[in-house]
């Protein structure tokens, strides 16, 4: 239990993670299409402001601005040679802010997906994926990240490759997947399957869970699946602040700070240990979440109906864990 995150988890009932990175940076003037990671070097003050926003709103954990900092994503901007540098600086800026917080704050090095489809369906091999994630992990480690934070993953193969990279870098890690397709990840993984998968890894994560996906309600249905699996590893919930709506030519996330406060309390009552937001979650949301977590008494574990009532309905009838999902009758098959 030597890492900063495990120590905090041992001390505290729940931890507040941070909110959106992209939504905040766009509000500070990031042009769409521009890779946020370049701002680590070009606009360091704005990145400090991003980090400070989360810490001052009460986050116990915040993520570095390095989500797309792997060679595959940076190649789209011809910056594939800057992986180490951009990740190191993302973490160095974060280290400054975390160390000045006046309380223990965990700096988590964000690692997002490669955006490629892994072999045999796609072209990215396991070894190439491990190498890419490892390069990024070393940069984050060098810059002072306490823990690697692998997020928004869809494919189990990619999750495993990132886990292996964390092992190579000698880093503790957390890993969340994005459940956005009928309650599963894009690649069809259910919450129960993910729970089982993490326990089979050689170096299991400090905590695992879900981020992004559809809305806050769907995310907590996924969490319900993690809890039901019986896995006792700490769970992470980082849900979007509602769902994006197009209104009068503008787009905004419909989740208010009040809704995210309800979401945070429901997550805690479900047994989630690390609670945060994802897209659309701003410092105001985080403040409301923190206040609610500190002031509202712990309640019974909420049912799916209670979650749907407070946060809005689910995007699909089944999430694939209840045996109620649609199936197809097959004729005789060649194999099986």
């Amino acid at each position, binding site marked *: 239990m030597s890492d900063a995150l495990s120590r905090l988890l041992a001390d505290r009932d729940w931890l507040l993670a941070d909110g959106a990175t*992209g939504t905040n940076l*766009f509000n500070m003037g990031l*042009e*769409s*299409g521009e*890779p946020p990671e370049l701002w680590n070097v070009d606009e360091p003050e704005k990145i400090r402001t991003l980090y400070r926003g989360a810490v001052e709103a009460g986050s116990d954990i915040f993520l570095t601005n390095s989500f*797309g900092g792997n060679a595959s*994503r940076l190649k*789209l*901007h011809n910056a594939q040679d800057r992986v180490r540098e951009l990740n190191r600086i993302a973490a160095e800026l974060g280290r400054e802010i975390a160390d000045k917080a006046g309380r223990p704050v965990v700096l988590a090095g964000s690692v997002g997906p490669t*955006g*490629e*489809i892994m072999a045999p*369906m*796609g072209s990215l091999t396991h070894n190439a994926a491990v190498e890419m994630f490892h390069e990024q992990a070393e940069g984050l480690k060098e810059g002072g990240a306490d823990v690697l934070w692998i997020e928004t993953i*869809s*494919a189990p193969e990619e999750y495993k490759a990132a886990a292996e990279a964390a092992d190579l870098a000698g880093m503790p890690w957390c890993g969340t997947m994005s459940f*956005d*397709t*009928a309650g*599963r990840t*894009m*690649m*069809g993984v259910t919450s129960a399957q993910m729970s089982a998968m993490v326990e089979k890894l050689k170096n299991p994560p400090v905590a695992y869970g879900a981020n992004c996906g559809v809305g806050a309600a769907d995310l907590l249905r996924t969490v319900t699946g993690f809890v039901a699996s019986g896995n006792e590893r700490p769970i992470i919930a980082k849900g979007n602040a509602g769902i*994006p709506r*197009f209104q009068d*030519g503008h*787009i*905004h*996330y419909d989740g208010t700070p009040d809704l995210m406060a309800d979401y945070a309390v429901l997550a805690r009552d479900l047994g989630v240990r690390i609670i945060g937001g994802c897209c659309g979650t701003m410092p105001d949301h985080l403040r409301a979440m923190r206040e609610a977590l500190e002031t509202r008494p712990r309640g019974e574990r909420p049912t799916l109906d209670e979650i749907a009532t407070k946060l809005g309905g689910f995007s*699909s009838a*089944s999430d*694939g864990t209840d045996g109620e*999902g*649609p*199936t*197809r009758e*097959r*004729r*005789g*098959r*060649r*194999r*099986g």
Partner: protein
Amino acid sequence: MADNDDEIILSELSDDELVQQMMDDLYDGLKEEIEEGVNILLERGWAPYDVLTKALVAGMTIVGHDFRDGILFVPEVLLAANAMKGGMAILKPLLAETGAPRMGKMVIGTVKGDIHDIGKNLVSMMMEGAGFEVVDLGINNAVEKYLEAAAREEADIIGMSALLTTTMPYMKVVIDTMKEQGIRDDYIVLVGGAPLNEEFGRAIGADAYCRDAAVTVETAKDFIKRKHNQLAAGG
């Protein structure tokens, strides 16, 4: 003992049984078996266009429906599309020779400012799997790039994808430019991406919002059929 373990000899099946089996094999993503089935049907004198539509496209339609309904997920669909492509590789030169009707051609890319391409890539693969020709413009496309490519390729469909709430409004820029140039109705405009919805598609003047790759294929087929009907009616 007619159990499932019996080896299936494709060449011993009747046409109907073979087509049924090919649909199953597509569903299971068995590329070599699909190639074999295509060759057998051709040897039996089937027109290449019939092999395409009655066996392969019909089979992929089932795959598409099950993807839409949350029965199949991306990995299975990609395997099926890959098997379909194996069959298409055999049929493509024959279809050209016999002057069979084209399924349709699509230019597709993520809009200016948007670098998230996995959804767009899935749509490309599924559209190719369904027999469409696809010209992939990659990421971060300005309006000029869409319109030049659509004209150059004599495309039927322009497909635009965006993952970000900050980039999806650019789709309207493309459509408005098409209107200004008087070419809006020359193309079927399909839009997609995680933060979009039908209401947004209507608001910006797209022909349709497509929720996922399977819906895109179905929608594209629908619109192409309507276009052919209009042409046939002299409209």
